[in-house]
């Protein structure tokens, strides 16, 4: 049996020391008097070599050679090899939550640096140590606003990821919270309608920047109007875009969240991902999740500790700011290493590469007869094209030509069946984009 050190002799001697004649006797002494289950449907154990071969075969049944223009919040970005190498050091990934600071300064300092990086990227003052993903981060932000304002109503734009919206609806299933969804256009998230829907009983308005359709908007006047009425503004943002665009902090948002997958985390069929959250200083003690702060020892040396723990479940129990226990530490570490490797100029260049590729790819697609623009005045690396055929059908046929062509919006927006949401990252070459447009033209007109 692998991963168990005890030999038969060890077991015998240890049972002697314990004062039990056998394992059966020990279990009975511990109060377990049940017949063993059959477990008939569980296969017999195999060696790592056999299990590896099985799993390699399964991996081979997944298509990862498709040229990827599919995003919708989850992107196929370049990831430097050093991210894997460093985050893959066992000192990081085989440790746990840094409860003992003297034995965990590596993890603690990394979280402090991660929090700093998130603040710098979002233009905010305080960040937590991470949450599960972008969807749960947005839900936690909504609950935080509800706690702060003591109001039970939230307004959410339909231009927020439908994946996040259905999660939030699910979490509200047993809560006394009124969730108002406001229809949105592509070019702006219906800011006027959102403001109109937010009344004196509203805790917060949830929006996305860039929105789900890829559109970048100015939100400053919007957040100011909400602030005047004591309503919190909450945004879900795309960190790679934040390298180039005006920060949510500058636009006046109270709570900034987002999916951090684009920061050096592989797609991995849906997770693990990274939920980030940053807030204004004044909301610091209302924030959910682990937080690391700087501290000093008796000799005056700098160190880092988990802090503000009085907000958390292990102390506050049902009164905690969240039920979350750990963070998504391995993914937060990857994000920090990624941001460090790219650095101040590299991050801007990586984002510019995405944005320039996207503009070029859009131009190529719009040259095709019958392909029309939808919105597209201001976007980062994702945009919509209207196709002369059902976009789901086209995406299906593009797979046969080796492309994940984008996300057909009809799945979540029934009025948009002809629309395809296309994402382009720095990984795509000019040649791939040309081939993509040629394949699209062939699918549409051959």
């Amino acid at each position, binding site marked *: 049996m*692998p991963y168990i050190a005890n030999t038969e002799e060890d077991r015998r001697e240890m049972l002697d020391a314990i004062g039990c004649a056998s394992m059966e006797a020990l279990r009975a002494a511990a109060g377990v008097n049940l017949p063993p289950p059959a477990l008939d449907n*569980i296969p017999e154990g195999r060696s790592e070599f056999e299990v*590896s071969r099985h799993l390699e075969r399964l991996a081979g049944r997944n298509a990862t050679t498709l040229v990827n223009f599919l995003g919708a919040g989850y992107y196929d970005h370049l990831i430097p090899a050093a991210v894997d190498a460093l985050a893959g050091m066992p000192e990081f990934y*085989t440790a746990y939550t840094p409860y003992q600071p003297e034995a965990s300064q590596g993890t603690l300092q990394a979280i402090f640096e991660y929090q700093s990086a998130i603040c710098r990227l979002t233009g905010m003052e305080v960040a937590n140590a991470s949450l599960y993903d972008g969807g749960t981060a947005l839900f936690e932000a909504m609950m935080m606003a509800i706690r702060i304002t003591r109001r039970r109503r939230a307004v959410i734009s339909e231009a927020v990821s439908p994946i996040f919206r259905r999660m939030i609806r699910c979490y509200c299933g047993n809560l006394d919270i009124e969730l108002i969804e406001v229809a949105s256009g592509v070019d702006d998230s219906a800011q006027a309608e959102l403001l109109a829907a937010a009344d004196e009983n509203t805790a917060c308005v949830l929006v996305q920047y860039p929105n789900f359709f890829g559109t970048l908007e100015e939100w400053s006047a919007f957040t100011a109007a909400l602030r005047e009425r004591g309503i919190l503004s909450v945004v879900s943002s795309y960190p790679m875009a934040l390298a180039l665009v005006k920060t949510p902090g500058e636009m006046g948002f109270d709570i900034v969240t987002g999916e951090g997958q684009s920061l050096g985390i592989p797609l991995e069929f849906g997770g693990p991902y990274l939920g980030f959250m940053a807030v204004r200083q004044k909301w610091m003690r209302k924030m959910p999740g682990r937080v690391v702060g700087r501290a000093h020892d008796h000799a005056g040396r700098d*160190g880092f500790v988990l802090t503000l723990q009085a907000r958390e479940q292990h102390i506050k129990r049902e009164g905690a700011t969240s039920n979350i226990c750990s963070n998504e530490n391995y993914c937060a570490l990857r994000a920090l290493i990624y941001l*460090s490797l790219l650095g101040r100029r590299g991050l801007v260049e990586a984002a*510019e590469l995405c944005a320039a590729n996207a503009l070029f790819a859009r131009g190529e697609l719009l040259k095709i007869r019958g392909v029309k623009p939808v919105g597209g005045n201001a976007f980062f690396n994702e945009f919509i094209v209207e196709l002369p055929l059902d976009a789901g059908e086209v995406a299906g046929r593009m797979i046969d030509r080796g492309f994940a062509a984008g996300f057909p919006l009809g799945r979540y927006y029934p009025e948009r069946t002809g629309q395809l949401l296309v994402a382009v990252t720095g990984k795509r070459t000019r040649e791939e984009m040309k081939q993509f447009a040629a394949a699209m033209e062939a699918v549409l007109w051959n």
Partner: protein
Amino acid sequence: MELIFDAGRPGRRGVRLPEMSVPKQTAIPESLRRTEAARMPEVSELDVVRHFTTLAHRNFCVDSHFYPLGSCTMKYNPKFHEKIAALSGFADLHPLLPQLRHGGALTQGALAVLYESQAILAELTGFAECTMQPMAGAHGELTGVMLIAAYHRSRNDAARRVMLIPDAAHGTNPASAATAGYECRVVATDGNGNVDLDDLDAKLGPDVAGFMLTCPNTLGLFDPNVTEITRRVHACGALAYCDGANFNAIIGRVRPGDLGFDVMHVNLHKTFATPHGGGGPGSGPVAVAEFLRRFLPVSRVTKRSDGTYSLEYDFPDSIGYIAPFYGNFGVILKAYAYMLTVGREGFPRVSDNAVLNANYILSKLRDAYPPKYDRYCMHECVLSAAHLAESYHIHALDIAKGLIERGFHPPTIYFPLIVPEALMIEPTECESRETLDAFIAAMLELAAEAQRAPEELHAAPRNTPIGRLDETAAARKPELSV
């Protein structure tokens, strides 16, 4: 130690990116441009590698240290799991592919991993079906409680607003119940470390939706009344939730589904040997009895009669979407590899050796650190430093710091809350007897030092990069970023 932001110098570059092959134009209007680049580090690739390698060396971890953190099951994380998870066929797979027409055919390998691991987990826990979606243990608790709520809602039983929770429970239990909209009511532990049945009866009633019980409990003890408890909970119309944080103690030997529980979460990062990641990601699948299946989150992975796998969404009673996709797939994949390696005959050996190791430690340390409930334990033992605190002002915290100085990661301390000066020790089945003996010797030495030279212990640890930090000052004037 220097922060990464203080390393390097202006203008220094790290990773080189591909040349831009298209015109250098974007669709970002000037008015929406960032005025100043985000102040990320300006360092070389080697600077980054040195920095994080140095940080890594400032951690204790399972690969380098005995890490008996109670309730966390810090078992060995097999190396081949990492290699599997890095395969491009898994790591580079876009989660939205199955939503494209014909896309399901392109993810059959990944769907097989999800389906087969949920089937094995259902068998091990004794339930009808599992969802692999919850992204951590606490997220599994929330999901489980939401399933209980959906059940009562389906019966138009709106009066059940209370979740019962033992006083010994993890803080996540009441916090998860509250996140799902429940009030919490505490059930006492009796003098033997079991649920106080009289108190349970007193707290049960028509307003109770469920009872969340950790099995074995957080004292590391198997409650011999567990089937009686689930019977009484059912008799009052409530459901029985099993917190599976301690599943490693009984895996292959006892199935919570056979004990009368209705819903349970399992922590893959504990029982199924996936890395704890320095604090996540975890994975907290939820298993349910037959009558709760219809409420499970969507999507659900199913196997067709032709042997292919598909994602199904059409379940009108489902609570909905608790995760963006199918759960923390990368974690589930490693747990699946573990399930296949350990296998049918291996699981009982896992729990047997976990229980044996914990009882061995208990037998050697129960005189020096008398447990509040002195009986045979399961996979962990909860000792106490209460007498050292009273006589010598040596607290559980001081013992923990003394262990760090001696090269051991400390156990969980001050939990469960009902045990004063608690030291919760979980060795796992992976540790050798030599390691356990070395730890036992260190603990005995510390108990002796507490009497002989308590001031030495108050100064521990003295051989770490930093000494004890002033946490109170840090919380009073928090500095959370630079």
